[in-house]
């Protein structure tokens, strides 16, 4: 068999976490292979080992039948492997052509015309559209992606890895991308696409390799695969976690989001007409592939994200009049009397001040209360002491910079503070990411306690098993749109997996403009 790339028992660990465990699979010449898996299943890590960014701890990589060592992106290029990352590596003020030749050791003089000609030739061969003289900062996302692909082809790659290439593209752009990818395949190149969009997998690839929790599951011919079968392989059997799920306590409407739309800096709708309700005394889970608008949704509610249109209404406990949160800063929202707590995804970059100790971090949101010119250190210190004891935070002292604590302890400090402010709404983004089992269960317990107190808990998660055991309702986001809300008690993993990866026809139709 003529394999372009073969992986044999590749294992990669980051500290205690095993990202890839004994993964073996192969890619043929002239085929498109989809690499399918949930968030955190180790797809990108695996591919980074092919492109020279990581170095495997164990196992072999064979290119063209020979065992190779890839210790830098340069080595990967030399072997004809090129990867197009999700985050483009381009110099904004340069033209397309300048980006293409950046860092190349070609001898001879810098002949712009020859470079442009070569780029045009590549474009013509595969059906790309790109102006070599266009500046990158003037480019759309899809143009930047095209440029990244051409950069790789210009260097003579015949094994291309695309990391979630369609995540940022419109359906029309996606179609165009797929047609050039097919042209490249017909030209004998091997293409690996990292994705979790099932219909794309089925429409473009020849074979599908599936990863689950860092382990290789299987490779199937696309012609014999169905969406249901792939989803099952991707999400696996339901694992019983035995997380408590108390019954909802007197659910009343607390937050009502209507028609929320946000646009990111590239002008792409990152939230598209999102509407839902979160009730007090319930946990609303939010599921979705990462980067589908979860972060923006929570930040929009918290007053941190610029909103194009839509409304977020807050119902005070015991009141029927609602208060509008859109257009207000976090401070103004607090002044309205809205008890909103938010555990952001970026713990040290947004939720906490890394250089301060627990005490300093306790007052981050309410340091400004009262008219005293000086800080009130006493109460935060007591609170810090309390959280340290109750949540068993391990820290040398209350003044040790929280940056120096372990990930689990950092999260305990953050969640502890947010809960301590007696919220009516508690939003958490990836609250257990990177935490050990024990800390994770502590977080689940804390969330349930809040729920029992009548708090509206919004839990953005990536682990479907947890979402299914913890949430009362699960809202599924797909590409910035709401793809339905299911009952957490009787939904299945496959059902949610399908909703995450496939936009239902009615949601799709609802946003056409």
């Amino acid at each position, binding site marked *: 068999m003529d394999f372009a790339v073969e992986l044999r028992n590749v294992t990669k660990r980051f500290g205690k976490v095993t990202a890839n465990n004994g993964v073996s699979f192969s890619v043929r010449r002239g085929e498109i292979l989809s690499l399918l898996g949930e968030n955190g299943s180790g797809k990108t890590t695996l591919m980074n080992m092919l492109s020279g960014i990581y170095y495997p701890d164990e196992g072999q990589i064979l290119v063209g039948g020979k065992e190779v060592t890839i210790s830098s992106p340069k080595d990967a290029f030399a072997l004809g492997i090129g990867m197009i990352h999700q985050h483009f*590596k381009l110099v904004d*003020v340069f033209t397309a052509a300048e980006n293409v030749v950046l*860092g*190349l050791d070609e001898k001879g003089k810098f002949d712009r015309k020859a470079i442009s000609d070569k780029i045009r030739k590549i474009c013509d061969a595969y059906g790309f559209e790109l102006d070599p003289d266009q500046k990158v900062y003037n480019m759309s996302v899809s143009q930047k992606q095209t440029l990244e692909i051409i950069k790789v082809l210009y260097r003579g790659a015949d094994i291309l890895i695309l990391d979630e290439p369609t995540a940022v593209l419109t359906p029309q752009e996606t179609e165009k991308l797929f047609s050039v990818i097919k042209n490249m395949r017909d030209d004998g190149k091997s293409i690996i696409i990292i994705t979790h969009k099932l219909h794309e997998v089925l429409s473009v690839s020849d074979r599908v390799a599936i990863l689950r929790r860092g382990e290789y599951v299987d490779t199937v011919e696309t012609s014999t695969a169905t969406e249901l079968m792939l989803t099952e392989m991707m999400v696996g059997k339901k694992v019983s976690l035995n997380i408590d799920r108390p019954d909802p306590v007197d659910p009343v409407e607390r937050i009502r989001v209507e028609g929320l739309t946000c646009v990111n800096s590239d002008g792409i709708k990152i939230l598209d007409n999102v509407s839902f309700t979160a009730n007090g005394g319930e946990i609303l889970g939010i599921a979705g592939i990462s980067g589908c608008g979860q972060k923006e949704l929570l930040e929009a509610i918290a007053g941190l994200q610029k909103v194009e249109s839509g409304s977020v209404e807050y119902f005070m406990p015991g009141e029927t009049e609602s208060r509008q949160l859109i257009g207000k800063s976090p401070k103004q929202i607090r002044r309205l009397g809205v008890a909103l707590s938010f555990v952001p995804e970026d713990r040290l970059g947004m939720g906490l001040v890394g250089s301060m100790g627990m005490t300093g971090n306790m007052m981050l949101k309410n340091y400004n209360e009262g008219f005293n010119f000086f800080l009130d250190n006493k109460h935060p210190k007591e609170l810090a002491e309390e959280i340290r004891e109750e949540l068993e935070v391990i820290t040398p002292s209350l003044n040790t910079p929280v940056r120096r604590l372990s990930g689990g302890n950092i999260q305990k400090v953050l969640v502890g503070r947010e809960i301590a402010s007696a919220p009516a709404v508690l939003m958490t983004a990836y609250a257990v990411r990177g935490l050990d089992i024990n800390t994770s269960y502590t977080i689940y317990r804390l969330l349930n306690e809040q729920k029992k107190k009548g708090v509206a808990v919004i839990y953005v998660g990536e682990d479907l098993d947890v979402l299914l055991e913890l949430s009362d309702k699960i809202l599924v986001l797909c590409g910035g749109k709401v793809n339905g809300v299911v009952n957490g008690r009787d939904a299945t993993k496959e059902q949610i997996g399908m909703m995450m990866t496939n936009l239902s026809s009615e949601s799709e139709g609802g946003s056409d403009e």
Partner: protein
Amino acid sequence: MFSTIAAWFSRTVMFGTVMMYGCVGETITERSGNLNLGIPGIMCIGGFAGFAGGYFYERAAGDSYNGLICVLLAVVSSFIAAMLVGLIYCFFTITLRANQNVTGLTITIFGVGLSKFLGTLVMGEQTTIVASRAHDTFSTRIPWLYENVPYLGELVFSYGFLVYLAIFVCVGASLFLFRTKTGLNLRAIGENPATADAAGINITRYKYLSICIGTGISGLGGLYYVLDYNRGMWVTENGIEALGWLAVALVIFTTWRPMNAIWGAILFGFLSWAYQFLPNLGVTIPNYAINLVQALPYVVTIFVLVIVSLRKKRENQAPQSLGLPYFREER
């Protein structure tokens, strides 16, 4: 009338040449993402080393004085001395990842102090020393053109060779930065070192080389100041440091393009000398206004800085990673 303007212009060109060297050197440095506030100090060092080269050769050679050797010695010692100080800057900011502003300011303290210290040592009891023959060599005018071209001869061909070299260096640096692959790679480092790194560019090597060459070029500005502009005289209270700061301002004014340095330096020089020549043209300015006019280059530079940040035109901005150290975290 003409003679006044001609004198004003020629003073401007000579003054501007000092800045031009400093500016081009600093532009190359900043294009690699390093803000070198040590330029004034480095120019002082370059000035003194060049002077010392010329002065000691002149004394040692006696009757066998050869202009070419003098030029060679002065230029090389100026360039190398400035480069060595640049090397200290590189070592601290690149290898030791020290803060660029702090290191640069220390370099200026060091360079200004060292040049004055060594100068005083050479001078002994005197207050000035002159390398007169070196000055003659450095200020030799272009022979035929100067005498035989009416008007233009006086305006354009009446300077020492370092003036023409400065323009040549500006053009050369511009071609290097914008027309060669090496220049492209260098600019990529200043804009986005992570991308450059991923493209396989050796960031450390590029930064070291570009900063050392850049500081060497800046050093020539000091050399020109002493051996031509200042008539071969070394005095302790010289104007090199002030011109060095003007050169740093000029980099911003030129929006990091060496070609703009040619007319930018002349504009700065024109403004700086306005006070002396305007009275001859019938414009009387009071004594105190001299200083206000001298502040103009800085005010203009601030305007450029603000307008550039306002207009958000990407090409005119400072290199994006200017002042930030690059550190690829080991995994």
